[in-house]
């Protein structure tokens, strides 16, 4: 495995400093510091409600933090949003797509929105629809896509303008194994070509297979971070994760009626 050992590269792809977000009375993210080295495949792990989506939303400029800084490829996303946002691609959580467009229309929309030339958009959109097996002449509205197809079209929208950093929220959630394998393959090629991927997940198998670096987030703080080898040590990632998060591993006599 080719794990970049340089942890303190001069300009990390994504740098978070002291990010804090409070919703009403709940402290969703309580001071997150994180460096994602350029060229790494970075997995942000955490149980449901740990603050993964909130953290990533603040990192890409979708949610204003109460405190802290987020720098994307050296540009502060809140001080200089235009420069920072132009260099990244984002797959937001859930179905945050303009889903009353067809897949092709949606790609054309994202391409033009990124200021790309119409000819380039045409060529890349057709290619992406084809490679992601969405059907180049498919005129179904995205709202009628299956969950896996929605993830794939969302990913295509994020990659269309060839950004140097991809921030993906749960890209493997609700995706069937065939589509997941395809997405994995595309992302691995992207990283091999010099891109950086940050994604959130709670599927340990995928993370162990893909990531060069991981961080474990629980209750709004980073509990553990490093290269995959450093974090995992001699054990399986799942054991480490459950231990760090402090989950309950076995039930006693409670659910006897089941």
């Amino acid at each position, binding site marked *: 495995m080719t794990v970049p050992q340089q942890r303190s590269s001069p300009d990390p792809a994504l740098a978070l400093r002291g990010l804090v977000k409070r919703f*009403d009375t709940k402290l969703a993210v309580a001071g997150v510091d994180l460096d994602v080295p350029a060229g790494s495949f970075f997995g942000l792990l955490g149980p449901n409600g740990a603050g993964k989506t909130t953290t990533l939303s603040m990192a890409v*400029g*979708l949610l204003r933090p109460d405190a802290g800084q987020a720098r994307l490829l050296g540009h502060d996303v809140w001080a200089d*949003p235009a420069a920072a946002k132009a260099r990244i691609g984002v797959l*937001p959580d859930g179905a945050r*797509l303009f889903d009353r467009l067809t897949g*092709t229309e949606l790609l*054309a929309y994202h391409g*033009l929105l990124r200021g790309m030339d119409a000819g380039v958009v045409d060529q890349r959109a057709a290619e992406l629809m084809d490679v992601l097996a969405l059907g180049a*002449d498919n005129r179904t509205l995205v709202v009628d896509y299956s969950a896996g197809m929605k993830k794939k079209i969302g990913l295509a929208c994020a990659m269309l303008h060839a950004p140097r950093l991809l921030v993906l929220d749960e890209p493997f959630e609700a995706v069937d194994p065939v589509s997941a394998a395809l997405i994995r393959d595309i992302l691995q090629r992207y990283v091999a070509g010099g891109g950086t991927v940050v994604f959130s997940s709670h599927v340990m198998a995928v993370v162990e297979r893909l990531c060069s670096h991981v961080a474990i987030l629980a209750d709004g703080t980073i509990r553990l971070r490093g290269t995959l080898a450093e974090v995992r040590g001699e054990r399986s990632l799942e054991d480490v994760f459950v231990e760090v998060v402090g989950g309950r591993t076995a039930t006693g006599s409670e659910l006897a009626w089941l």
Partner: protein
Amino acid sequence: MAVGVRHFVKLKLRITANGLRGQTWRVALFVLGAVLAAGAAVGGYALFSLPGLLGEQRAAEVALPLAGGLIVLGWLFLPLVFFGVDESLDPARFALLPLPRRTLIRGLFVASLAGVPAVATFAGTLGMVDSAARLGGPLAALAQFVGVVTGLLLCAAISRSLTSAFATALRSRRARDLATVLLACVAALLGPLQLAALAGAENADWAGIARVADVIAWTPFGAPYSLGPDVAAGRLWAVPVKVVLILATIGLLLWWWSRTLERAMLGAVGRSGPRERAASARRPVAQLVPAWLPRTRFGALTAREMRYWWRETRRRASLITFSVVGVFLPVFIGVSSGSAGAPTGMLIFVGALAAVSLANQFGFEGSAYAANVVAGVPGRLELTSRVAGFSVYVVPALLVISVVVGLAVGRPESIPALFGVLAAAYGVGLALALPVSIRMAYALPDTANPFALSSGGGMAKGLLTFAALFGAALLTVPVQLVAFLAHDVWLWAGLPLGVLYGGGALLLGLRLAGPMLDRRMPELLATVTARQ
């Protein structure tokens, strides 16, 4: 323990309360709406108790059914045009619960009464009981009370079943155009009725109106509110007949509602089937952006807006409703007011009403707006393209409206000036609606009913609409003055002046709202994202 009606009511109240929690301006709107409703209720009570206070038996026989009929009509049309329906109890959420349909319908129906409009209507119409008591003693009062209660049930049943049916019709692709035609027909049918009533009011005497009222008193619209006067006039036999009529109507409406609801509940799981379109040989960008738009950010944003106004049910519903209201309202007023000339005031209302459709434009797409935030679309460009995309539909509609109105009032030479007035009102309305859409956006519930609003949303929508209409009326006073005072000049100067006035207002609005959007993009995204 069996699930009863009170569980639904409690659930509804709990959802309303939770929806208000921690949202200061929502609470403020709710309180404001409640105060206004209380005012209307007190006013209504005073008005309806007047015939009794004066001791005018015949006045009561005429006024109560007429006013009651108007109230029922209001319950029918106001939700479609202004308020939406409070669907905080989304029927689709009950689809998996083991509830008999009767229980579900009864529960949802009674829960729909647990809201500000129903309480205000009830309190206001109680004035009729007062009247009946003074005119015909306790028995008449009792009859009128029965009438007021059944009348309220009728109002709720009519508004629920019609919005639900219309929503179902809009959702299925095949019936989509049918729904448009149907709504137009309903409005067209109302036209002659209204014309007849207005003509009667103008030409005929008191006896003419009284005859109309006597007829209305025997339709489901007026019947509930004529029970008291009937008893007071000694027509005791009429009461049971009318009660049967009303109950049968309510029963029929509820049956119809339950049918459409069932379809809606199934639809929420299965959807109306994927919309397969013919494969297109055109290149991706050409599929999105029509040839007459530039292949730029602006072109893409505008093209998406155009698609959305037609493909998204909520937007389509508001577009269709506007078109129908926009064409018919000024024509009625124009024709029925006789030779008084062009109905400038009504045109101002229509132009502003079009713009008000954008007052919660970001709420329509909810969290999908994240794509534009991530792409860092400048606020000015975002708003300009939204106005452009909407105007592709609205400007032709305004043209049609001015032609139709001009012909209907028999003054075709005034058509350009009429369009000028519409354009001025539309521009001013947009200038007002744009900042409102940024500062006072609210999330729309994720349901199948395009008229559905979460609790409190109806109040917000209605008040914002009225505020914007009022503001537009105020800001177009110069145009109205010129049109009124310099009538001959206005005939040829109206078009350029109106367009300039509206265009200038729109530019100002964009200049103001653009930077506002730049500053508030993430906050706006958070407010329009439906809370899970």
